[in-house]
């Protein structure tokens, strides 16, 4: 059996305990493994090269999140990068203000255009639309019959028309008739299934351009097989150059292909992957989720789910809210601080949070400082804040000597500890407030986090 990638990565990082910073040297092995994983997933080799270079640039100097192992941390960087390349979910179609909206299906032979046309019509019907189908594949034997069977199966309208000669003139006539028919039938979307064609077949690519001119479609969707290898960039690029695609549908995703073509195609066309086909039935069409396919491309589902777990524990919006507040002129309150503390505890440790900080200026030594912090101390800090009244938490300046005594008693700590916390809180609050100003880094030397 092959050693799985997770193990390989973990091995690649076996020397990176304790020190925790990613360097050109210590990520070299891991990047090699990731390069192989991407290539095995059929990501185009030039795309892989660019990606790896970019990821290296990004990773070097980063501090490892202690909630994650170094290997996981690198995978996290890779994952974020791939998601960034793939873009956001976009299971949406553009609709014309003047119906019918026209969707032109394009792609190589055998990529799945006809079945996908049916699925799309089905999807539109479920969304309350009235789609009409038309096949202008006058070339492949029984292609038009195929779409007719599909249309009947999903109970969608189809314009059949007559074909005497198999040529572009017939194709052009068919789409014009179909559009008229769609209008007459009050259909609001016309899906045009076209013959599969090679991107280097000039005559048939010209035909496609002519269809585009006649129809002025809102969507030109490139239907591509998820099993496609290195050639995906060539075909997608040519189709895009000639037609200016508006989106991509990736088919046969119910198989076990890793689907690296998604990255290649997205990369050369810049167009969103709108749907994926996941079966032969007409409802087997799903919105595209970049995060899911990234797991598949990398073949590291186990690591990725670990990373996700760590991340979901960290409530992003709360953190952002805190950051905004901390840097505002009001500064953050002890109440806000307690919220953050609870987040830290959820993630596992203070080190994790520190690890997310960039290693600049005085922050460079923070990891070491954080290593000395015992998580039990964090519990004491929280206990102290818990013993305050909510008014005290919002207005730390009113906490005088007698209040301090009460708080220490209530939290089972000492007055010194309460003093220490308040001192550090004030320091930190000031530091964050000044952070929006350019010279903050200089003023931060010697600053300490509460609880240390």
């Amino acid at each position, binding site marked *: 059996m092959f050693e799985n990638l997770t193990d390989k990565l973990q091995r690649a990082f076996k020397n990176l305990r304790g020190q925790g910073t990613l360097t050109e040297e210590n990520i070299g092995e891991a990047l090699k493994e990731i390069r192989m994983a991407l290539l095995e997933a059929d990501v185009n080799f030039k795309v892989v090269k660019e990606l790896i270079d970019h990821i290296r640039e990004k990773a070097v100097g980063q501090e490892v999140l202690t909630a994650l192992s170094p290997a996981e941390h690198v995978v996290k960087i890779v994952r974020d990068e791939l998601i960034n390349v793939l873009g956001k979910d976009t299971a949406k179609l553009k609709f014309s203000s003047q119906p019918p909206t026209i969707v032109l299906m394009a792609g190589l032979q055998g990529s799945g255009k006809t079945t996908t046309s049916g699925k799309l019509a089905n999807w539109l019907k479920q969304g309350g639309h009235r789609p009409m189908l038309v096949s202008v594949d006058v070339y492949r034997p029984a292609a038009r019959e195929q779409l007719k069977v599909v249309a009947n199966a999903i109970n969608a309208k189809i314009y059949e028309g007559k074909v005497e000669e198999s040529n572009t003139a017939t194709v052009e006539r068919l789409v014009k008739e179909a559009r008229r028919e769609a209008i007459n039938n009050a259909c609001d979307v016309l899906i045009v299934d076209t013959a599969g064609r090679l991107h280097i077949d000039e005559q048939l690519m010209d035909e496609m351009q002519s269809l585009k001119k006649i129809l002025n479609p809102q969507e030109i969707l490139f239907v591509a097989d998820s099993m496609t290898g290195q050639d995906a960039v060539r075909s997608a690029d040519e189709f895009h150059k000639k037609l200016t695609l508006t989106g991509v549908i990736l088919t046969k995703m119910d198989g076990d292909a890793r689907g690296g073509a998604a990255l290649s195609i997205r990369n050369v066309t810049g167009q969103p992957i709108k749907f994926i086909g996941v079966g032969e039935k007409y409802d087997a069409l799903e919105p595209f989720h970049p995060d899911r396919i990234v797991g598949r491309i990398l073949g590291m589902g186990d690591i990725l789910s670990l990373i996700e777990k760590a991340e979901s524990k960290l409530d992003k919006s709360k953190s952002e809210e805190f950051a905004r507040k901390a840097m505002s002129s009001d500064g953050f309150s002890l109440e806000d601080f307690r919220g953050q503390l609870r987040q830290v505890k959820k993630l596992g440790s203070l080190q994790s*949070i520190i690890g997310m900080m960039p290693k600049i200026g005085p922050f460079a030594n923070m990891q070491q400082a954080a290593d000395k912090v015992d998580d039990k101390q964090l519990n004491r800090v929280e206990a102290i804040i818990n013993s305050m009244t909510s008014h005290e938490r919002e207005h730390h300046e009113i906490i005088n000597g007698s209040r301090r005594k009460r708080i220490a008693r209530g939290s089972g700590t000492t007055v010194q500890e309460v003093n220490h916390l308040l001192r550090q809180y004030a320091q930190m609050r000031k530091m964050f407030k000044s952070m929006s100003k350019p010279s903050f880094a200089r003023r931060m030397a010697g600053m300490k986090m509460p609880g240390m």
Partner: protein
Amino acid sequence: MIQTLFGSTEEKPSFLKRMKEAVTRTRESLSERIEDVVAFRKEIDRETLDDLEATLLSADLGTATTATVLQALREKVDRKQVANVDELKRVLKEELLAILNSTNERPVQKVDGEPEVILVVGVNGTGKTTSIGKLTHLLRAQGKTVLLAAADTFRAAAIEQLEIWGDRTGAEVIKNKPGGDPAAVLFDALQAAKARKTDYVIVDTAGRLHTKTSLMAELEKMRRTAQRFSATAPHETLLVMDATTGQNGLQQARLFTQSAGVTGIVLTKLDGTAKGGVVVAICKELGLPVRYVGVGEKAGDLLPFNSQDFVNSLFD
């Protein structure tokens, strides 16, 4: 949280653009590059080997096969058996040819007076039906009689598609109704062929993903049906593979061989720009020979596989 305070993970906008440019930059052919190399320096260096690696990877040979081939090459270079870049290219081609020619060619063991049965399988849309049409055309041109079994009872209008090819090539099509049992169609076709003393029975099957176990079991059942008819049938099981297929092709070949007992490959759509290099990996691992290549959509667009031409085409 704190990350957002410093929030400078912002993307350099140029990255995606730069990447796109790198990818779509017209690839000089390897021969051109090798010529360049020859012009500037006679010695083989790291860069030349990197170029070769890029060529093999971009032809879909996959990382493992590429690594093996290059390793063999490096050893020869180290032993000074390869003096210049021209020789390097020749040796590399030899390595690839050796893999492609080392397959298990198995003579057809058919009983005289009985038809030769060819089962055609593959994932969806690879070109099974079209290849059957072309193969029929080839056999008819040799004066053979062919009977087609429309055992794709699943895909819409699959039977009609095969019938059109039957008309074009002068072959009778045995069919049942859509949704019927494909093994039953096969059985009918075998009986008809026996009665008519047809030379060949070619069986069109529905495209299926190799991961769908129930559909793969259906192929096993068809095999058994053929075997009941004649112990050595099917005499050939052709896996039709699209040349654009990437590394998943290897898994396709493995699983179709497991269930359907694949004996050879038809590599289609080589008239495009894809090289179909995954068949080298398949030959290497499974010893499956490539029998034919598809180079277009017309009846005459099927050629017997020629390993020399194929290897040369990898370097164009």
